[in-house]
C-alpha cells in the first residue's frame, strides 16, 4: 500500500500528540518513583479522578470558561486528594519494601475506583473542547485536529516547566537530592517528610492534569485508570526509572510506534508499542536513560 507524505506527516503529528499526554501522566509517575521509591499503581486512578473532576467543573461552569477552569482546577482537586492520601497513608509506609507498596497502591486504586463510581456513577461522561478547537490545523500538507495540536504545544511546555522546577528551584533541588540520598538530606536539617509530601502531590497533580487534558477526546469512564497505568509503567521502565526525560523518550517511543503501526500494519497495530518495549528492554534492560534507582 502506498502512502503519500501528508498521510505520514499527519500520522507523525497525531502520534506526537498522544505521546504528550502519555508524557504528562508518566512524568508524574516517574517523579514519584524517583523521589519516593513508590511504584504508585493508584496514579492511574488519580488520572481518572482528574478527568471526572474536569467533567464536573465543566457542568458547573458551562461554556469555554468551564473548560479552561477545568484544566486548572481538576489537577488541583487531584492534588488535594493525593495530599490527604499522602498525609494519612503513604507517609507511614515509605520504609516498607516495594512489593508491600505495590500491593498497597493497588488496593488504593481499587478503593479510589469505587469512590469514583459512588461519586460520579457508572455512566459514561463526556466533555466538549471549546469551539476554538473545532476543525484541523494544516502544517506542510499534513493535517491534525486542533485539539491534538494544542496538546503538542502543552507537552513541551510542561516538560520545560518541570525541568526548570527540578533544576532551578531550591525545592526541586532538594527533591532531587532526596531521590539520591534521603538520609543525607535529612541530616542537613531538611524536613524530608514534607519534601516527600510535596513531591508526591506534584506527581499526582501531573496525573490530574493528564486526565483533564485527555477528557475532551475520550469517553470518561470507569476503567480508564487501568488502561493508562499499564502503559505508564511500561513507559517509565523503558525510559529509565525516575528519569523525567526518560518518561519523555519512553512516551515518544510508545506513542509514535503506535501511530505508525496503525498506519502500516493496521490489523496488528496493538502489538507495535509492546514490541517496541520488548526490543528496548532486550537492548537496554535498565531503560534508555539513566535510572535513578
Amino acid at each position, binding site marked *: 500500500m502506498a502512502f503519500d507524505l501528508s498521510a505520514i506527516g499527519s*500520522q507523525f503529528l497525531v502520534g506526537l500528540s498522544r505521546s504528550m499526554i502519555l508524557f504528562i501522566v508518566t512524568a508524574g509517575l516517574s517523579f514519584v518513583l524517583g523521589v519516593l521509591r513508590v511504584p504508585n499503581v493508584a496514579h492511574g486512578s488519580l488520572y481518572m479522578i482528574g478527568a471526572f473532576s474536569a467533567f464536573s467543573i465543566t457542568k458547573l461552569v458551562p461554556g469555554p470558561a468551564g473548560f479552561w477552569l477545568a484544566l486548572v482546577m481538576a489537577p488541583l482537586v487531584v492534588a488535594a486528594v493525593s495530599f490527604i492520601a499522602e498525609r494519612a497513608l503513604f507517609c507511614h509506609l515509605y520504609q516498607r519494601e516495594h512489593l508491600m507498596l505495590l500491593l498497597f497502591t493497588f488496593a488504593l486504586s481499587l478503593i479510589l475506583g469505587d469512590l469514583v463510581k459512588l461519586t460520579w456513577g*457508572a*455512566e459514561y461522561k463526556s466533555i466538549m473542547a471549546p469551539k476554538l478547537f473545532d476543525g484541523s490545523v494544516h502544517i506542510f500538507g499534513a493535517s491534525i485536529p486542533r485539539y491534538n495540536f494544542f496538546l503538542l504545544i502543552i507537552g513541551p511546555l510542561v516538560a520545560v516547566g518541570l525541568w526548570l522546577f527540578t533544576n532551578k528551584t531550591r525545592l526541586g533541588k532538594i527533591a532531587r537530592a532526596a531521590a539520591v540520598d534521603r538520609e543525607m538530606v535529612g541530616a542537613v536539617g531538611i524536613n524530608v517528610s514534607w519534601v516527600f509530601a510535596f513531591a508526591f502531590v506534584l506527581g499526582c497533580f501531573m496525573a490530574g492534569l493528564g486526565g483533564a487534558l485527555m477528557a475532551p*477526546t475520550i469517553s470518561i469512564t470507569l*476503567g480508564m485508570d487501568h488502561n493508562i497505568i499499564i502503559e505508564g509503567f511500561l513507559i517509565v521502565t523503558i525510559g529509565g526509572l525516575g528519569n523525567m526525560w526518560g518518561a519523555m523518550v519512553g512516551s515518544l517511543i510508545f506513542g509514535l510506534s503506535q501511530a505508525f503501526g496503525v*498506519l502500516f500494519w*493496521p490489523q496488528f*497495530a496493538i502489538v507495535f508499542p509492546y514490541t517496541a518495549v520488548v526490543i528496548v528492554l532486550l537492548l537496554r534492560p535498565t531503560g534508555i536513560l539513566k535510572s535513578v534507582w
Partner: protein
Amino acid sequence: MSKSRFSGMVLFGLVVTLSLMMLPALSEARDIKVGIVDTYSGPPAVYGNDALNGFKLALEEINKQGVLGGKIEFTTRDEKFKVDVALAMAKELVMRENVDLLVGTINSGASLAISDGVAKAEKVPFIVWTAKDEKITGELGHRYVFSTAENTAMAGKAGGVGLAKKPYKKYWIAGDDYAYGHAIADAAWRNLKALKPDVEKIGESWWKIGEPDLVPYLTSISAAKPDAVIFCTGGASMTNCLKALKATGFAAKIPSWIHTAIDHAVLKPLGAEAPEGVTGTIQYLFYYPETPENKAFVQAFEKAYGNPPGFPAFNAYITAQLIAEAYKKAGKIDKEKFIDAIEGLKVKGPTGSMVEMRACDHQAVYPMYFGTTKKHPQQDFVIATDILTLSGNEVMPTCDEVMKTRKK
C-alpha cells in the same frame, strides 16, 4: 403395641406425608419467581439498570391482573460482569431460591456459561435479554435458552442490508479487537457481499478494547481513501470512536456505519459533540416510530425513572410480556410447559409492532431501524433521522441457516 395399631400409624404417616407432598399442586395459585442475573456495577450497569427498569414497568401492568392467579416476582443478583460470578449466582438462584426461570445478562460470556452450566444442565428456562453474541441462540442454542436481545448476526445482517442500498464500493473495516467486534464485522461483510458482490474490502484495522485514542486509526484510514467504513465498536469505545470521528472531521468526509451508533444512551452524553452523518442500526428508539403505544410507553417510563427507555428496557419489557403470556398459555407453572408455550408466541411490543419468539431457534424477532445521525433541531443533542425500518424477517438469519451452525 398391637399389629393393627402399628399399621394404622404407618398408614396415617403415609397419608400425612403424601398430602404434604401434594400440597403445592393442590394449593391455590402461587407467585412466579424470576431470577435476574445482570451487571449492576461498573460501566455496563447503565444497561443493566435500564433493562431492570423496563422489566419492572412491564410487571407493574402485568401484576395488576396477575398471572395464573398469582404475581410475577423477581430477585436480582449482580454478576459484576464476571463469568464465574454469574454462573455461581445463577446456580444459587436455581438451587436455593427455586426460581422458575432465569433472566439476564449483558455479558455474552456469562450468558453462554449460564446457558450451558445451569439452563441446559438443570433444565431451567433462561432468557438472555442484552448480550449480543449470536452463538447464544445460534451454534450453542438448545431447548432451555432464549434471547430477546438482538444479536450480532441480526445486527450485521441489518448493516449489510442497509449498506447494500448505498452506492459505496470500497470499504474499510475497523473495530474493537474482541469477539463482539469481529462477529459484527463478519456478519455485516458476509451479508453485504452476498447482496452486492462488487463491494471490495481494501483494509482492516483493529484496536484493543477500551483504546482511548482512536485519532491515529482514523487518520490512517482516511489516508487509504475508502468510500465507506464499517466500524465495529461498542461501550466506551463507541463514545471514543464518535468523538474522534467528529474531532478529525472524518464523519464529514467519509460515510460510516456503526451498529448502535444511533443509541440514545451513546448520543445523549456526547451532546452537540456527536458527529452528524454517521449511520447506525438499533432495535429501539424512544422517538421512533411515533405510534401511540410507543409514546405511552416512553411517557410511563420517564415518569417512573426520569429518563427515556433505551434498547435494554425494550428488550426487558418484551421479555416480561413473553413470560406472562407464556405462563397464561401453559396454564400452570411448569418449566417444560412454559417452553412449549413460549415457542412461536407473539406479543404486541411497546412500540405497537408484533414481537415473535421464533420456535426454531428461540430468538425474538422484531424490526430494526437503520438511520443517520443529525443534530436535533431544538435540543442540544444528536438523533437518528432518515430512518429506514428493516423488518424482522429481513434482518434475521433463516431457521435453516441457524440450524446449520448447530449441526457443525
